[in-house]
């Protein structure tokens, strides 16, 4: 669909609002027009040396018009903001919902600075176009038709001049759009890139300083800012051409309709009283266009943001919801998970992360996947959570293809403890409660106790009400991990994934976490992704991955005696210990 009609369609969300705005706007114009008539009449009275009382009457009418406009303008401004906020909320919601649906797969391709600035500042820039420009377009149209028709009855040549000017002022800028489009896009891209670069540099400031690179980075950024400046100037050079056309049409329209009227009067083809009316009316006729120009100017940044918004909304999802999800099987306490001939690559051009994988985790058992980094361990987790779907083969959850469940249901059956845990801004209580929104405080404390987290949480002055996350206090990796385990305990899902759960944890916490995890795996089907081989030795089944292929499987003892990859990995670990020992 064409970009503009799509943008226009966005306003469909606030049709009523737009209509109201148009009505208010037209009323304002009407008040102007009435005042123009009154003032023209007043001038005629003065010219004719008429009765002063009549003149005063005209003044009073003008005054009433002014008061009416004031009230209307107040209402308009208030209403506009409300409307703007509503539509921005709708757009932000749409983008976020889509991002949540697209999942982490989409994110790896996009830089987060970019997305975040789109959701807040980007959407903010859409306001001018949606809630000001579009209604104004209608106001211009209706008021021009109204005034044009009236003037047409007075004198056709004057009306002709006016109408040409209006048409050019409204459609002239549109004609140059394709040219301008390109530059706007470049502008927004440069803006977004610059934004993420500044964020990147500032987040890495310590690293830069340590490496004596902060000054250099500053120079680099200066170059980028320079580049942004150039793009902005270029964009302005063009966008101003557009508004200059409008200014030209307005100025010419006003000057020439008055000029032509004067000539018509001198030829006796127009009444003098009508000339006074045109003197004021011509100005009123172009006032809405003047505003239109202002709105157009402030809409520019929004166009580029809109493009980004559409590109997100249009991105095909990595996974699709089943049309008729099954969602049964909650009666089966301990799920069985199996991979059948599963192959997957993140990008078609890249080599497969997983090749023709077959494995089965029996209900209630603990399985472990081991292998070097890059062997495909984390990919398995992403596939199980359906952040991606495999290109070939299928993943069965209790014998049913995972694709046949709804995403919500599937994910409600899985609890994950990730390598690094993200904490949201809010209290520790809130963060644990995420896993079960209706959990009571007792349940949460119990979960924290089981996760060996209760002790450190209680040591904070504000306990469970301590604020954490980017804006709160920062917790150590081990503390975060234990909160993550508490979440998993609270979620109480039958299938548990421990994705390198103890790997970003300091020695202090590791023992506590291991103990917590041992409680957690009981009565669950568990998949452990691990590179600390000590943690997987007790697993019922061990799968060894190498380059995306299942290379070995079996129990610890069997694999050791096979003297294959697994036993080599174990040996390597011993060697590390020897090295450490000196």
């Amino acid at each position, binding site marked *: 669909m064409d970009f503009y009609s799509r943008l226009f369609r966005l306003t469909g969300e606030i049709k009523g609002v737009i209509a109201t705005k148009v009505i208010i706007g037209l009323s304002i114009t009407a008040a102007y027009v009435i005042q123009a008539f009154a*003032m023209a009449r007043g*001038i005629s009275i*003065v010219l004719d040396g008429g009765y002063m009382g009549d003149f005063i009457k005209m*003044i009073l009418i*003008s005054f009433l018009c*002014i008061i009416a406009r*004031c009230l209307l303008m*107040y209402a*308009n*401004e208030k209403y506009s*903001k409300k409307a703007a906020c509503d539509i921005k*909320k709708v757009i*932000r*919601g749409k983008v976020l*919902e889509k991002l949540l649906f697209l999942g982490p797969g989409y*994110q*790896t391709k996009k830089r987060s*600075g970019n*997305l*975040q600035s789109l959701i807040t500042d980007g959407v903010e820039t859409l306001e001018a176009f949606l809630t000001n420009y579009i209604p104004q377009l209608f106001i211009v149209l209706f008021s021009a038709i109204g005034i044009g028709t009236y003037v047409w009855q007075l004198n056709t040549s004057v009306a002709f001049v006016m109408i040409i000017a209006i048409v050019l002022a409204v459609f002239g800028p549109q004609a140059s759009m394709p040219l301008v489009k390109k530059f706007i896009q470049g502008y927004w891209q440069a803006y977004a890139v*610059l934004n993420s670069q*500044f964020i990147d*540099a*500032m987040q890495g400031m310590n*690293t*830069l300083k340590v*490496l*004596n*690179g902060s*000054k*250099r980075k*500053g120079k680099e950024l200066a170059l980028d*800012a320079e580049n942004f400046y150039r793009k*902005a100037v270029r964009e302005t050079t063009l966008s*101003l051409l557009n508004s200059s056309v409008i*200014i030209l049409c307005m*100025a*010419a329209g006003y000057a*020439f309709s*008055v000029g032509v009227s004067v000539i018509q009067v001198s030829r006796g083809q127009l009444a003098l009283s009508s*000339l006074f009316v045109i*003197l004021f009316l011509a100005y009123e006729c172009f006032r809405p266009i003047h505003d239109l120009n202002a709105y157009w100017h402030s809409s520019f940044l929004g166009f580029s943001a809109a493009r980004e918004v559409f590109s997100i909304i249009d991105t095909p999802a990595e996974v699709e919801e089943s049309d008729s999800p099954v969602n049964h099987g909650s009666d089966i306490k301990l799920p069985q998970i199996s991979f059948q001939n599963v192959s997957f690559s993140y990008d078609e051009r890249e080599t497969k992360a997983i090749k023709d994988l077959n494995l089965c985790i029996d209900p209630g058992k603990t399985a472990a996947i081991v292998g070097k*980094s890059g062997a495909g361990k984390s990919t398995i987790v992403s596939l199980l*959570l359906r952040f991606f779907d495999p290109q070939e083969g299928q993943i069965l959850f209790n014998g049913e293809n995972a694709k046949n469940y709804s995403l919500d249901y599937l994910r409600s059956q899985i609890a994950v403890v990730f390598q690094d*845990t*993200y904490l*949201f*801004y809010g209290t520790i209580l809130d963060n644990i409660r*995420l896993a079960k929104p209706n959990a009571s405080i007792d349940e949460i404390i119990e979960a924290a106790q089981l996760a060996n987290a209760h002790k450190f949480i209680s040591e904070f002055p504000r306990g469970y009400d301590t604020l954490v996350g980017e804006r709160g206090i920062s917790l150590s990796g*081990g503390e975060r991990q234990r909160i993550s385990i508490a*979440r998993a305990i609270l979620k109480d899902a039958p299938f548990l994934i421990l994705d390198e759960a*103890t*790997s*970003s944890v*300091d*020695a202090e916490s590791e023992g506590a976490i291991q103990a917590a995890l041992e409680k957690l795996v009981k009565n669950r089907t568990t998949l452990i992704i691990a*590179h600390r081989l000590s943690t997987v030795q007790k697993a019922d089944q061990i799968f060894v991955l190498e380059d995306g292929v299942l290379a070995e499987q079996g129990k610890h003892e069997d694999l050791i005696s096979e003297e294959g990859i697994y036993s080599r990995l174990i040996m390597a670990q011993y060697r*590390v210990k020897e090295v*450490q020992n*000196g």
Partner: protein
Amino acid sequence: MDSTITNKKGRTRSIGFIKLLKYLKSYRKGLGLAVTSGVLHHVFAISTSVVCAYIVGLIARDNLSGNGAAILMILGVLVVLRTLMYYGEMWFAHEVAYRILADFRIALYNAVERVSPGILLNMRSGQLASTLMSDVEVLEWFFAHTFGNMIVASIVTTIVLCFLAALNIYLAIIILFLIIIILSIPLLLQKKADEQGRDVRDKLSDANAEAVEGIQGLREILALNYKKGFMKKMYNSIDKLSNSQITYGKRLGLEGSLLHIAVGLAMISILTMSAFLVYEGVLAFEWFTVAVILGGYSFGPIMEISSMARNFGIILASSNRVFEVLESKSLVEYKETSTIKGKFKSDILFDNVSFSYKEDNNNAVDAVSFQVYEGETVALVGHSGAGKSTCINLLLRFWDVKTGAIKIGSHDIRDMTQEELRSMTCAVLQDVYLFHTTIGENIRLGKPEATDEEVENAAKLAFAHEFISGFPKGYDTKTGERGVQLSGGQKQRISIARALLKDTPILIMDEAVSNLDSENEQAIQQALERLRRGRTTLIIAHRLSTILSADRLVVMKNGKVVETGTHEDLLKEGKYYKELIASQYSLPTDVKEI
């Protein structure tokens, strides 16, 4: 930061503007051109109206001589000139604005550089980014649409007033009176405007932070089925933003209405007054129409700044945030020129060092003294919060000591230039930050002039070459933001390669707490071994193996050094160390096992 703003509230406005004006100084030429074309733009626009009104007045009294073509020609010329001047005004104003914006961003970066990492104690990165980018964008309004316009408006208004005074002095007096009223309206509502403007920006940056959470915590949101809860939270902050914006909008509407009444009154008074003058025979009719048109439309430029002034609240709130960062005092001041002659020795001395992050806080380190001899590896050991990281932050001069001194080669680090200190030290920090550029560039950070071969060599020594060349694009592979595609172990190896390439005599390390897969761990241990060789090393140790491999240990507790010595000595004689090791590494079983 919010509290400081409120404290200064009373004088923020004037100070804010004076600061903004200071930045306009070096753009005099561009601004001059913008103002000149701006004045001409308005003069031509008003001339057009005046000519129109004048000929209407003449024809009304049948005094119009000359032909229609001439009239249209004059009008045509005026219209074209006006358009050209409009273009010129806008172009020059924007050029200056964008120029200043670019300069501001750079200035802000430099400010952040100066005050990092201290600034992070007060600001979250999402907010910092929003300050930098959006607030600077808002300032464009001031530079492109306010300052120049103010000058233009005053000049144009003066011209119009003179013209009216020439027609009749009373007309000019009435207009002057109304102009004063118009200008005072935004002033009356100023306090409200400032507050609301600040509130809108604050709410926007809250929504921003919320969005950042959604993006960075996406995996958790999905895995925990927290979608609804998150959206609720997000909508909640959007609603707060909306409310704040609506409040702002209401005031905007009120101000707009008041301004409108004032302008309407001006038009009517001029009409009445000049009608009276015509009746009295003081004013010719052709000038009557001119006076009416002038009275009505000469307020254009004044209205423009008044409606601009309605946004001063937002502009000021933004500029306050920007200046907050720009004017944050530098945490450390480096010597400009080198005063130290000859080569440094690379031993490190902490001499009775005390420091606290905030004035009123307890000391993070308290009277800490220890020494690292040349070529020696000393490990800092202790619970988290014991002050180990603070020692390293101080040695890196992220902050300066409160009392005492840190010396390298018997020179106080405060007497060194930045170049000297940085060329002596290199750090491998716990949280490895990879920039959004190629892996090669990331390694090269510490030595930009390094050849590809040197980079590769460093990577080989750091056991990173193999996995890097495994990527399709090798060293030209771009790292995602925060290095998403690389594993923790790989990132650490890149960080070690950086340090190897930078090749400084002193190595400072904050050992990563995370455990690594055996392959990574082995590689990293060996790489570190190589890195430490021949260097003076101060290391925050988490792993027992690292502690064991250090020459000496400095044991810290609650910001104080409690014990120093070798592992064996401390196990024999020490008290706290023994406890620490026993509790953390479940000794003695572990020791036997390895």
